[in-house]
């Protein structure tokens, strides 16, 4: 990589190193910025940057009620960036990105849910969750505080999470309820909660590699 250059005056060489260093810093910086959530991985040691979601063993499902009829749905595509150290829980972090266009409920609903009244997936392709504080409650239980953003509307959220480890994989499970109208999901004529209930139960199971033993 080092080009063969004619000897230069010392001051010039220093200046060059300075410029190269700046370039390197800029590249690294933009690289981190490009990887988005991963920028937060700096908060814990670099070895944990290899923590990755195992999509085949993960799921995000929900239950909505239509005139009392429970309807199950799920998101087929989502991503997660985890920087979790059981010994430094306070400095750990998780971020999720959920592809709203990948919603799957039933043939009628799948066509409707991506429309502007519901998820408006064309304008807001992704829902996101960004943790702000993680608290250990003992026995593998944690409390994750953060912000959930759907359709451009952000809401504070407190999620109880249970962690379990097996064969090098760490699984986080939990459930919480959200109110769809807080996010204007089901707007206009669909905002009638006697027809589609306001409360939606969300369940998740997220499996990760590379989390140190609890």
């Amino acid at each position, binding site marked *: 990589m080092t080009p063969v250059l004619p000897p230069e005056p010392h001051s010039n060489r220093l200046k060059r190193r300075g410029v190269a260093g700046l370039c390197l810093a800029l590249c690294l910086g933009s690289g981190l910025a490009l990887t988005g959530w991963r920028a937060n991985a700096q908060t814990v040691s670099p070895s944990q940057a290899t923590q990755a979601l195992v999509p085949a063993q993960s799921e995000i499902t929900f239950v909505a009620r239509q005139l*009392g*009829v429970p*309807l199950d749905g799920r998101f087929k595509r989502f991503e997660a960036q985890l920087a979790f150290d059981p010994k430094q829980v306070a400095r750990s972090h998780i971020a999720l990105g959920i592809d709203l266009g990948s919603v799957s409920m*039933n043939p009628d609903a799948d066509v409707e849910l991506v429309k502007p009244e519901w998820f408006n997936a064309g304008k807001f392709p992704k829902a996101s969750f960004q943790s702000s504080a993680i608290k250990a409650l003992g026995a593998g239980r944690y409390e994750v505080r953060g912000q959930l953003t759907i359709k451009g509307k952000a809401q504070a959220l407190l999620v109880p999470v249970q962690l379990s480890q097996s064969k090098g994989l760490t699984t986080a499970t939990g459930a919480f309820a959200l109110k769809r109208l807080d996010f204007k999901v089901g707007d206009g*004529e669909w905002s009638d909660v006697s027809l589609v209930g306001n409360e939606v139960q969300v369940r998740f199971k997220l499996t990760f590699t590379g989390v140190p033993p609890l």
Partner: protein
Amino acid sequence: MLATTTTTVAARYTGTARAFHWVLAVAIVCVFCVGLYAEGLPFSPSKLKLMNWHKWAGVSILVLSVARLLWRWAHRPPALPQRIEQAMPAWQRVAYHGVHQLMYVLFLAVPLLGWAYSSARGYPIVWFGALPLPDFVPVSASLAKTIKPWHGWAAYTLMALATLHVLAALKHQFIDRDGLIRRMF
């Protein structure tokens, strides 16, 4: 003439049987029309509401029909007045019993097929939004596709038989003038 009227009035259906007949007659015609209308609507809150009302009404009709059948077993309907029965050709007597029996089969079959279709489509029925009913078929798009036309054709058949039933009753009233219709009033 007066004597005939008296005998037919005396052989009326029980009050309970008449109530079942008229309530279910109105309910079945209404639920059929709602189903037919809502089926063609685009996905919307009104379609969802109408479809759910259709399902709730359908299950209510099923329950009432079972109760009606049990009542009928315990309280045999009046036999046809002898004079009227003797005036009927053999095919009419077969048709009279056949139409009634087939209608009873369809009172049960149409709602059961609708229920099965709803379950197969992935929408379990919650009766009046309060009582969750069990699914007796699995959720399956292909099964739903198979059941749907059966529900429709069974309902059309029931409507055709009901029309025949009404026409026959009107024929007895206005052509034969035998007062048979009074059994149900």
